[in-house]
């Protein structure tokens, strides 16, 4: 089983070993890059079809089922369609920026995968400040969105871009802040070390994942909410709202460039899901000690899949928010709560010194209450901030 | 004792807090305001009892603190705990407590109930501060605060013009005495450099104090001036009868039991400063006052006024006792008097309350049946005041004074004056009791009189017990009180009662008292009400007595008229002489100003105009650089930076 766990590492080392010695680092790097691009490219394709199928199930219809077995080849058909479509550039558009925007959207996202540990010994780049790198890279997508919205010279595009940027900036605060407790307790910015910090086991062989602590659970929920907004997914997809601003900054894009945007968005989702898995769900670690024999990359993939399914499920469930609701939610609920979560993590750390056996549940309940009560109150305050329900004067 | 002295500041602090809190209360919170006052004074009472218990073994303890630095010297204030202060504190707090409780009933109908208790608490705090002060300065501060509280309470019903005038009169008259006190205090400070009473051998009352006899006499007399004012001694007694305009509990507490006794206490406190010469003056003043006031009391008709003159007279006895016999004699009478006089005033208050505010004894009568409890208590007080032998406290304390006066080595006159006073006291008190409680009720309010509520009668009865019992602590046979104050042990010896001179004095005074009571009872017990029998017999003398020997009129004719004339003269001086001088100066100034203006306009302005033109011109020239263009500023900075860089890097070789 050890061999299966390390099979990708082994393959990479063997392949690189055939190359002449000076070129070995380069070959190894190319192999890793190719591997990541292949895996997540496939992931992209599979996710599109999975999303459509799952949405279909949830909305009581079939979803795509014509191409290939059960419609599995639908992504290929879509790709062909996209690539053969006419690439329309508006007459008054800023041509350069219009061209650059999808590239700026997609390219940096690939870099973000470099620091994610996909399995044991399977991270492309073990950066000391990995998570900082991750967020620094992520900021490029905002520029891309602006470029797309601005260059199209279309007021829907511009409004969409403004909304998207406002939303991304607003939700970047809780996104980053919700990761801080993890960094704080792991004592490192390196993602590998964060996974290592979750590697020990506690009673019954249960892993010490962050999600099993009150602050970790709250952090994961906050992180997922912020991540949903950060990747412009429903219910926070109003910058791309088709019915309101005809897909926002994507209005003037078609064909290959549109596909690139699409790819960029999904890759962003993947990257951030991978980060969530790494930070809160123990990365490639097994949940129980006696499950360690399952290959680590399989664990990572499994958790990744569950979270992706969660995103799709949320998309099928919740309606789109209004802009003021969106911003209020970020600044008046998520951001304060992440700060409180920071304090809760500190309290958890301090109470770690409690000796007795009975202390563990007490500690758990105490910290959970510390985060749950503010959440309750902030939620109530938020409800008051929403304007009263609309009155219909003529349609009764 | 050393430990408790550190906490006796709490005794005055508790009512002070209550006063402060009461001042902040809204007027409607009656129960809370009164509860605060009563609670605070109860706390003080308990603390005082503790302090008293600590002093039973004798001795003295003091604690002080620095108030402020005054140049090189620091002014110290402090508290002292000794038998003198402790017995006074217990007496004050007990009387205050009883009178506060009594006031709950007496003042129940008043709209300013809360304010009343606030003022009363303030008074209690100041009085206790005075009693426990270990510094003449703190004593003086409390003394003046007591005066302020007295002023406020006399004028409590300030809607009545008479009350407002009485408050003013009391305040101003006592101020005259306080002026002497202040001067005496300053003289003492300049002489001794300290105002602390006891300071482990360095206080002004400690044994090693050496002062010249002459100066010391002067200081003692000046301080005695304050006592004259406060204790209503002749010739500054005029304010005390008028002070009866205040509510009756006020009269009982302040103007009978405690504050007016503060003068006596003052003399007792600074007794080591009193030279024999000074004490002689004290004795004479006391003796004169005792007879003088008792004589006036015979002819008064207002129930409270009679008691007021009686108070003056008794204060005279106390002074006489201090002067002739010493601290213990005076203080003993002070203590017993406090109880029975408070009792009498409260009884009078009960009577007035029952008669719906009537104060004239001629309009009362026959109240014995309608107010039995009040009558019983009042009779006890009356007999104590008269000095009915053996069972009443007044007998023992007054007798001690008479005994001391009998043994005075300078003169026998005070003794005879004292005997005369005792007779007069018995006479007027019997007259009053007969008029109020016996005979037929006068038509009007007296017929509908009713007994007071228990909240008023209960303190009366307690005071009656005290008025009777307090005397037994200082009989010649068992002089516990005297020995306690002087720091000795009292032995029980009945034979002292039968000691030659003491027995003589006792028998003599008892006989005089008996004569006074019987005669007065015979005259007034069956008289018709309209005209006083004495008036029919001696109209001239009676008129003289009724008009209080014309002292007020005398003051009006002399002091007040003189002051008025002097004020007129000052007015004239101000209007004619000073105004004229000022006006002349004004004209001079105006002339100078005219001249100045001319010079200014022609000479100075021209110069300045030229100067300002230059400044403005240069400013305009300079403002061209300040054109609001930030980029230009930045440019200049850049150029300057280049210049600086060149100068720094390559400039060194140039120089």
């Amino acid at each position, binding site marked *: 089983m050890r061999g299966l766990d390390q099979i990708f590492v082994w393959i990479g080392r063997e392949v690189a070993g055939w190359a002449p010695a000076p070129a070995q680092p380069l070959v190894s790097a190319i192999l890793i890059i190719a591997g990541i691009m292949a895996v997540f490219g496939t992931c992209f394709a599979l996710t599109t079809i999975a999303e459509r199928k799952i949405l279909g199930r949830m909305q009581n219809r079939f979803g795509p089922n014509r191409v290939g077995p059960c419609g599995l080849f639908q992504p290929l058909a879509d790709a062909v369609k996209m690539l053969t479509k006419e690439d329309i550039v508006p007459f008054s558009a800023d041509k350069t920026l219009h061209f650059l925007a999808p590239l700026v959207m997609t390219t940096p996202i690939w870099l973000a995968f470099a620091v994610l540990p996909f399995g044991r010994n399977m991270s492309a780049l073990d950066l000391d*400040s990995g998570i900082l790198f991750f967020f620094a890279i992520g900021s490029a997508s905002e520029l891309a969105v602006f470029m797309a919205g601005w260059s199209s010279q279309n007021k829907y595009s511009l409004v969409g871009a403004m909304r998207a940027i406002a939303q991304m900036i607003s939700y970047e605060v809780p996104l980053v802040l919700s990761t801080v407790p993890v960094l704080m307790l792991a004592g*490192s910015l*390196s993602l590998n070390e964060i996974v290592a910090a979750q590697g020990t086991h506690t009673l019954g062989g249960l892993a010490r994942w962050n999600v099993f602590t009150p602050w970790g659970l709250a952090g994961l929920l906050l992180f997922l909410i912020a991540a949903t907004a950060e990747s412009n997914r429903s219910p926070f997809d109003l910058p791309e709202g088709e019915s309101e601003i005809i897909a926002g900054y994507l209005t003037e894009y078609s064909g290959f460039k549109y596909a690139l945007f699409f790819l960029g968005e999904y890759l962003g989702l993947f990257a951030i899901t991978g980060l969530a898995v790494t930070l809160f769900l123990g990365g490639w670690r097994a949940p129980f000690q006696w499950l360690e024999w399952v290959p680590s990359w399989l664990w990572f993939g499994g958790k990744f899949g569950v979270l992706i399914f969660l995103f799709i499920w949320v998309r099928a469930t919740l309606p789109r928010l209004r802009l003021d609701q969106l911003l209020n939610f970020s600044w008046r609920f998520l951001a304060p709560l992440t700060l409180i979560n920071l304090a809760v993590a500190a309290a958890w750390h301090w109470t770690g010194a409690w000796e007795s056996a009975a202390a563990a549940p007490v500690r758990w309940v105490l910290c959970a209450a510390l985060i749950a009560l503010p959440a309750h109150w902030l939620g109530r305050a938020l409800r008051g901030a929403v304007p009263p329900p609309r009155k219909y004067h003529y349609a009764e | 004792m050393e430990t408790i002295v550190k906490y006796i500041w709490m005794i005055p602090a508790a009512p002070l807090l209550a006063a402060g809190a009461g001042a902040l209360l809204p007027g409607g919170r009656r129960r809370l305001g009164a509860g605060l006052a009563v609670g605070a004074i109860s706390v003080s009472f308990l603390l005082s009892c503790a302090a008293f218990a600590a002093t039973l073994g004798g001795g003295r303890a003091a604690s002080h603190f620095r108030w402020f630095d005054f140049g090189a010297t620091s002014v110290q204030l402090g508290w002292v705990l000794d038998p003198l202060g402790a017995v006074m504190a217990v007496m004050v707090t007990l009387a205050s407590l009883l009178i506060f409780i009594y006031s709950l009933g007496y003042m129940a109908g008043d709209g300013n109930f809360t304010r009343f208790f606030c003022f009363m608490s303030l008074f209690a705090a100041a009085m206790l501060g005075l009693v426990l002060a270990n510094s003449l300065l703190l004593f003086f501060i409390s003394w003046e605060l007591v005066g302020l509280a007295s002023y406020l309470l006399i004028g409590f019903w300030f809607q009545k013009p008479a009350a407002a005038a009485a408050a003013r009169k009391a305040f101003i008259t006592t101020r005259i005495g306080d002026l002497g006190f202040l001067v005496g205090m300053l003289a003492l400070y300049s002489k001794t450099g300290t105002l602390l009473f006891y300071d482990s051998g360095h206080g002004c009352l400690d044994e090693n104090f050496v002062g010249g006899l002459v100066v010391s006499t002067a200081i003692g007399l000046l301080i005695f001036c304050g006592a004259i004012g406060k204790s209503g001694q002749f010739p500054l007694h005029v304010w005390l009868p008028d002070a009866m305009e205040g509510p009756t509990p006020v009269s009982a507490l302040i103007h009978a039991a405690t504050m007016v006794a503060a003068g006596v206490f003052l003399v007792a406190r600074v007794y080591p400063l009193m030279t024999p010469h000074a004490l002689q003056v004290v004795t004479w003043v006391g003796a004169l006052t005792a007879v003088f006031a008792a004589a006036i009391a015979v002819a008064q008709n207002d129930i409270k006024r009679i008691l007021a003159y009686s108070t003056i007279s008794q204060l005279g006895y106390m002074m006489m006792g201090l002067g002739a016999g010493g601290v213990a004699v005076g203080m003993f009478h002070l203590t017993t008097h406090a109880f029975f006089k408070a009792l009498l005033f409260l009884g009078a208050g009960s009577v007035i309350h029952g008669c719906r505010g009537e104060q004239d004894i001629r309009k009362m009568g026959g109240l014995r049946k309608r107010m039995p409890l009040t009558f019983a208590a009042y009779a006890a007080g009356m007999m104590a005041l008269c000095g009915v032998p053996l069972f009443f406290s007044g007998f023992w304390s007054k007798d001690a004074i008479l005994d001391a006066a009998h043994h005075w080595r300078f003169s026998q006159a005070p003794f005879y004056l004292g005997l005369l006073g005792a007779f007069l006291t018995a006479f007027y008190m019997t007259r009053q009791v007969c008029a109020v409680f016996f005979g037929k009720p006068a038509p009007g309010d007296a017929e509908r009189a009713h007994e007071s509520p228990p909240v008023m009668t209960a303190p009366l009865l307690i005071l009656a017990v005290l008025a009777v019992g307090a005397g037994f602590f200082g009989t010649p046979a068992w002089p516990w009180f005297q020995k306690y104050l002087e720091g000795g042990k009292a032995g029980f010896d009945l034979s002292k009662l039968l000691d030659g001179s003491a027995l003589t004095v006792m028998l003599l005074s008892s006989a005089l008292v008996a004569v006074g009571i019987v005669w007065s009872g015979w005259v007034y017990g069956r008289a018709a009400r309209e005209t006083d029998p004495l008036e029919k017999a001696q109209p001239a003398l009676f008129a003289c007595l009724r008009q209080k020997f014309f002292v007020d009129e005398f003051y009006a004719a002399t002091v007040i008229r003189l002051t008025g004339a002097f004020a007129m003269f000052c007015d004239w001086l101000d209007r004619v002489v000073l105004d004229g001088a000022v006006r002349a100066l004004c004209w001079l100034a105006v002339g100078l100003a005219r001249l100045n203006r001319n010079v200014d306009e022609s000479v100075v302005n021209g110069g300045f105009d030229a100067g300002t033109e230059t400044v403005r011109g240069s400013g305009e020239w300079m403002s061209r650089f300040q054109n609001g263009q930030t980029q230009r500023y930045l*440019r200049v900075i850049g150029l300057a930076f280049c210049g600086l860089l060149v100068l720094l890097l390559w400039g060194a070789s140039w120089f």
Partner: protein
Amino acid sequence: MLNEIAFLLCAALTLAGAVAAMTLRNLAHCALCAAGAFAGLAAIYLQLDAEFAGFAQLLVYVGAIAILILFTVLLTRGAEIQPGGPAASTSRGMGLGVGALVTACLIGAIMASPGLRGHAPQTVHAPVKRIGEQLMNQYVMPLEAIGLLLTAALLGAVIIALREPPKEPPAP
């Protein structure tokens, strides 16, 4: 050699971005070019082994300041619409002259400094942990001050940019 090439590339990106940012007419292009220059600079930091500073530069300058500038550009678009007036300031020549002069001075100073030549860099390692420890120990006061400054700046910016409420309520 590789190092030199990397430096030259990054330097070229930075300078080109800066020059473009300062010369282009379209404000949005200017802002994006400035972002490019910031990113190039971040790359140079990385090349200088200042990993943390490089990522911070990227996060703050590209992720935040560039976006802020873009937002401001969008919010003041009315200024662009106004006709007339050159893009450059009235005293453009003088400005350029002063800029060139300062640059010349600086480069002259660098050239004239003999101490700069032949200075071999030492190998350094600046792990994040040590940066954090230093921030929490030696530099804790500056850190707190910076936190305070940022909070003040945040509030100040919000207050300055706040739209003033209308003076008179609209008539009903």
